């Protein structure tokens, strides 16, 4: 396995700049998950790593070797394409075998490998079919199988599980995780699935409009988002972001949440949960971010802990998702989504009291939208 360094990689299609100065350094055996809104340049970046597109500027190093001008075939990289790109003239087995054949792997070893990969992906019964006789999910698994057949220095997966059902997805995710651990493979992985990103990544790169927003561990990205974009992009439902004014001084700051027309809400911040940088914003406006799961329904007789506080809000919408219930509140005139147990005893239009875990609170500069740490 190998380390991968992207140095100031840029890409334009004609006049349109798709990637701006992307620099990422990956250690041997890292699992990088690329996330970002549709069209932000993830696949383009993957193609550049694979050598299928030339970067307009910048360079790439694999295991210290400059590969900017190396042909894809000589990079020793495997890739699962977002669009599958199965070979229509070959059966499933042949598709999987192809990269091995190209690397001159012996016939019996190939057959072995096809067998084990197809077993892993539960497509053994499809080995003799042509791509056009497969369902969407089956095609996607064949595409994965083709990439897994080899053991290259680097794997690239572009949304490999998007067409699989939830169970299979969990299975495949586990398999990929195992694979990563077993082979100590370096992997770059694009996904839109939050859970995939959180569970698989050793590091997550969040992109937006071709610009790298944050590169960090899943914990960092989730709990210390570099800016409001990352904050609201990661996590579902998205983080609640509300404008608030910082008041008080010294050790005891509090946030006053602006009220459009609703009642004004003031939240006192416990010193332990106050970012150091927030002091400088006293009297100014910031953006406060609280995740939906940091709020719970206050039960009768509960007492707020040192990092908790109570707020009263009006219930607007209730959306049961099975495992939980999402409730949209009106908090000081702002929409505020919280996640509660499935059988939370609430009805639309009622008022209720909620408990906020302030240790999960993050604040952003109102102008630059970056994290105040």
């Amino acid at each position: 396995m190998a380390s991968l360094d992207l140095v100031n990689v840029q890409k334009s299609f004609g006049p349109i700049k798709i990637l701006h100065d992307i620099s990422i350094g990956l250690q041997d055996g890292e699992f990088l998950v690329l996330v970002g809104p549709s069209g932000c340049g993830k696949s383009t970046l993957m193609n550049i790593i694979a050598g299928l597109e030339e970067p307009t500027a910048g360079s790439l190093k694999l295991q210290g070797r400059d590969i900017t001008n190396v042909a894809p075939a000589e990079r020793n990289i495997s890739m699962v394409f977002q669009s599958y790109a199965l070979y229509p003239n070959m059966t499933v087995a042949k598709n999987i075998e192809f990269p091995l054949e190209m690397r001159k792997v012996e016939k019996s070893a190939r057959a072995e490998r096809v067998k084990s990969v197809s077993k892993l992906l539960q497509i053994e019964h499809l080995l003799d079919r042509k791509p056009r006789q497969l369902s969407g999910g089956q095609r996607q698994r064949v595409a994965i199988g083709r990439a897994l057949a080899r053991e290259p220095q680097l794997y690239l997966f572009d949304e490999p599980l998007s067409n699989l059902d939830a169970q299979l997805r969990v299975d495949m995710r586990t398999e990929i995780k195992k694979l990563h651990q077993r082979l100590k493979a370096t992997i770059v992985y694009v996904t839109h699935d939050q859970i995939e990103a959180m569970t698989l990544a050793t590091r997550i790169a969040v992109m937006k409009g071709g610009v790298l927003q944050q590169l960090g561990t899943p914990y960092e990205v989730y709990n210390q988002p570099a800016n409001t974009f990352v904050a609201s992009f990661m996590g579902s439902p998205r983080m609640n972001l509300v404008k608030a004014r910082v008041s008080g001084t010294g050790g005891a700051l509090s946030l006053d949440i602006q009220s459009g027309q609703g009642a004004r809400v003031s939240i006192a911040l416990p010193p332990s949960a106050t970012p150091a940088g927030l002091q400088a914003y006293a009297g100014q406006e910031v953006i406060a971010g609280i995740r939906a799961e940091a709020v719970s329904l206050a039960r009768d007789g509960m007492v707020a802990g040192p990092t908790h506080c109570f707020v009263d809000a009006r219930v607007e919408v209730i959306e049961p998702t099975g495992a939980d219930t999402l409730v949209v509140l009106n908090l000081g005139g702002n929409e505020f989504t919280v996640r509660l147990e499935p059988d939370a005893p609430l009805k639309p239009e009622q008022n209720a009291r909620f408990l906020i875990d302030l240790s999960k609170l993050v604040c952003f500069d109102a102008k630059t939208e970056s994290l105040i740490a």
Partner: protein
Amino acid sequence: MQPRLDIARIVLYVVLFGFAVVFLMPVYVMAVNSFKPLDEIRTGNMMSLPIDWTIAPWLSAWSTAQIGVQPTGLKPFFINSFLLVIPSVALSTLIGALNGYILTQFKFRGANLMFAAMLFSVFIPFQIVLIPMAKTLGFLGLAGTVKGLIFVNTVYGIGFTTLFFRNYYAAFPTELIRSARMDGAGFFGVMGRILLPNSTPIIVVTVIWQFTNIWNEFLFGASFSDFSSYPLTVALNNLVNSSTGVKEYNVHFAGAFIAAIPTLVVYLVSGKYFVRGLMAGSVKG
């Protein structure tokens, strides 16, 4: 889905049938007259069926008709034509596929200009290359040999085959080629394993075109070969185009059919490779 038979489809079949009849008319004339004795042709109606069926013209065209001084029929010339046509078709098709691949997948300066140059080359009248080509062949020591003919037919086939393949590959899904390159396929791997196996229809078209053209090519055959390497067309021409002798139309027609058999076989065999939905399901979008 097996379509049901409704008015539209009946019309469809009627139209197809009508065209088929028109297309078959000349060959009908040839066929019926190839089974008539010469007298009947001379005196009778050319469109009517033979009164006195005979296969003598066919036998004659095959084995006893006069091609040169010896009454050899067309038989001995088949081999020559095959020796000439198979390598020429294979070579020019291969070169065309190669050029099409290079022209569509690798961008280098002057590529488009070269393509235009090759394209334009199909328009040159062959009579203008005859003399210089004769000189060239003489210089290369290929004059009067099958090799020389293969060379000539290949060279002047490149324009077409390149055109066919380039235009076909222009619409080929790039993802497939990219994927193959990722999988470690080199230049020839991509071509041999991905492009060619997915080019069946265009290969069929190219082979039909090249086979027919080279099989029926006369000018080069007559000019650049000697009797031992004469292709079939020259023989057929000798059979048909004798100047002041008696014209045995029935033998001519039979000869034409015989000479066309390989081409017809190629059409029949290759036809079934026009398969539908070649790419379906290989890529999204």
